[in-house]
């Protein structure tokens, strides 16, 4: 522990202060690379000339401080710390003869490249957002006359349509065609009302035609209407489980009886 502390103490005072300030803000970083980029700014040099060794020290110092302050760091911060510690040792020691893989310099150069690229993208993003923007600085046509808002026009009508429609309504109600026909129409609602009262008595199978109301079996138009209405009504009752229906064969009389609950 005391070793770690001395590691931090060895940092130049400005860096140490910066590292301490950063720790407070640890949640504000978007990962280790972001933190490294921020740390690298304290070196005040072109990112291409940055000292990766010094940066590794700064980062490791940061991690140590965070540890000491018992700040939870995400795993990738620790992975980066381990990698930087490894890189640091490789940078400080002469390469083992016959060793495979990239040199420490290559790895350091890559890290510098990553930092430079990230910074370049940040600047590009800032320049992009500083541009004039549609809907903020410049605008599109507010009242488009085609596709997008043409939905309005998709349901379109001409003045002629409108006038015709009006003319229609002004002449139509003089005819009132259905009022005359009402006498010959038996509605399903009426039939349903009737049947509800009648099925209570229909304990045994009975033919549907026997339920037709008086006065509705003579005139063919009235017979058709009442038959249709009653047929629809018993279907409805069957659906509700109040009656059972049967028909011996096609076109045979339809019979019904009350279904016991």
């Amino acid at each position, binding site marked *: 522990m005391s070793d770690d502390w001395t590691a931090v103490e060895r940092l130049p005072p400005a860096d140490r202060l910066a590292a301490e300030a950063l720790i407070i803000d640890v949640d504000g970083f978007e990962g280790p690379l972001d933190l490294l980029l921020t740390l690298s700014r304290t070196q005040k040099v072109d990112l291409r000339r940055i000292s990766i060794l010094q940066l590794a020290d700064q980062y490791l110092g940061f991690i140590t401080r965070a540890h000491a302050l018992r700040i939870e760091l995400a795993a990738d911060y620790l992975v980066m710390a381990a990698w930087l510690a490894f890189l640091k040792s490789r940078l400080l020691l002469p390469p083992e003869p016959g060793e495979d893989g990239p040199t420490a310099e290559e790895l350091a150069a890559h890290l510098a490249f990553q930092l430079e690229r990230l910074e370049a993208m940040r600047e590009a993003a800032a320049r992009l957002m500083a541009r004039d923007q549609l809907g903020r600085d410049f605008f599109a046509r507010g009242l488009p006359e*085609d596709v997008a808002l043409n939905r309005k*026009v998709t349901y379109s009508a001409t003045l002629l349509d409108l*006038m015709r429609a*009006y003319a229609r309504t002004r002449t139509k109600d003089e*005819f009132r065609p259905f009022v005359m026909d009402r006498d010959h129409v038996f509605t399903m609602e009426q039939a349903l009302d009737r049947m509800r009262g009648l099925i209570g008595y229909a304990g045994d199978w009975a033919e549907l035609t026997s339920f037709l109301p008086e006065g509705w079996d003579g005139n063919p138009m009235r017979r058709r209407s009442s038959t249709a209405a009653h047929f629809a009504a018993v279907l409805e009752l069957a659906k509700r489980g109040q009656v059972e229906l049967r028909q011996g064969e096609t076109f045979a009389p339809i019979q019904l009886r009350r279904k016991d609950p």
Partner: protein
Amino acid sequence: MTDSPEPIERSLFEAPPMAEQERMVEAILFASTEPVTVADLEQRLPHGCDPAEALVHLRKRYEGRGVHLVRVGDAHAFRTAPDLGHLMRKETVEQRKLSRAAIETLAIIAYHQPVTRTEIEEIRGVAVSRGTVDQLLELEWIRLGRRRMTPGRPVTFVVTEQFLDHFGLESARDLPGLKELRAAGLLDSRPLPGSPSRGEDEDEASVGQSELFED
């Protein structure tokens, strides 16, 4: 006038040149989602501007162009030149005609506004479905008017500026009257002799637009 003591005078003095005012009006009308009134322009332009004059210049500038500056009620808007309407047709492929119920309802509202739903139903002789009214509201061809001061305080419907805009009318008064409809052969059916008179209910319904039919 060297040094004006009145701040209002100063800002009048500072109004941008007319060419600039014209640019401003042009941009506002272009970007606005609805026609813009002169009062509206006045509010949005720098102090001391004269939008009415700028509009005159602008209207002239667009004369004979593919787009015109037109008046819509009290307001102003850019519109495709009528002779180029055919170019817009490609976009209107999926045009759907208004349902018969909708167009009839719309016509009744236009001719009888302000009109309640009950009155519309009385005139059409059938119930007006909620969907029909909603569709017209959504198209922004009708809107709610003042409530009727009768029991139940029913809402009324009136047509909108968008409606006028769509049908190329300056005001609802420009709708052809019954006489003209008849003259155009659109209203050739005479009332059946002996059919019941519609009485007060019609009077009430036609209060709003009754003057249309007086000439």
